[in-house]
């Protein structure tokens, strides 16, 4: 029996394993691929690498799907695979480790007011966002990207980043400030 799209994308409520032949995986790909690709793109900062990463993440998910029993949200599960995969890639390529041990207090001394973020050329937005994110500590970058996904709760972000929801809230405040401080410098 084939499931409807709505049923297919809510395995956490159906809480049953899926198998290799499952038509549900197609719906899962359609539902989550954009979010997964975006996270990989902004974590890695390279479209070609993000493309490979998205492929690898879904292949890993496909192989492990039969073990997924719906204890967690499916998107959270896919994000976890993506984060681990991108971190491994970044370590392998020795990328983005300049700021990984940066003193967080550096980002807390912003003298900028929290003015609206304005961009003149919308087509340059992605490039400027990438430059800004690249200049932030990895933890801030990840928190900002995850909270931008409205489907994730603070609790789920906390699970993904191994901290409490309150810690997520606190760090997000500093991460947003750091982003607002950095963004104008990319113009």
């Amino acid at each position, binding site marked *: 029996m084939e499931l409807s799209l709505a049923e297919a994308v809510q395995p956490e409520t159906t809480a049953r394993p899926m198998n290799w032949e499952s038509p549900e*995986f*197609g719906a899962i*790909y359609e539902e989550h691929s954009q979010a997964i*690709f*975006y996270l990989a793109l902004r974590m890695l900062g390279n479209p070609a690498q993000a493309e490979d990463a998205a492929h690898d993440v879904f292949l890993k998910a*496909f192989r492990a799907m039969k073990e997924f029993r719906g204890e967690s949200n499916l998107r959270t599960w896919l994000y976890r695979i993506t984060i681990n995969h991108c971190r491994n890639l970044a370590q392998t390529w020795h990328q983005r480790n300049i700021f990984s041990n940066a003193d967080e207090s550096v980002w807390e001394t912003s003298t900028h007011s929290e003015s609206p973020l304005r961009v003149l050329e919308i087509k340059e937005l992605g490039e400027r966002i990438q430059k800004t994110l690249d200049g932030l500590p990895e933890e801030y970058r990840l928190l900002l990207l995850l909270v*931008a996904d409205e489907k994730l709760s603070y609790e789920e972000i906390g699970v993904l980043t191994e901290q409490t929801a309150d810690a997520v809230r606190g760090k997000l405040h500093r991460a947003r400030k750091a982003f607002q401080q950095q963004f104008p410098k990319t113009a």
Partner: protein
Amino acid sequence: MKQNSKLRHQEEQQATQQQHSEQKTDAKEFSSVDEMLRHDASQTAVPPNVADKLNRSIASEPQPASWLKRLVNNLKVK
């Protein structure tokens, strides 16, 4: 000669104004970082190569599934 120069000046002014108005059309203001990132995410499409490559990878897996083939075919039709 003087008239030609004046005309050229007017044309240049018009071109500059047009450029400014085009920039204004492109300009966008975000009230928060979250809003900006959401907008960026919504504008980022997954390259079709991903589904295509995934289809090939899954085809070489021990138990290939047919769902992705259908998806890729649907994407090609679109």
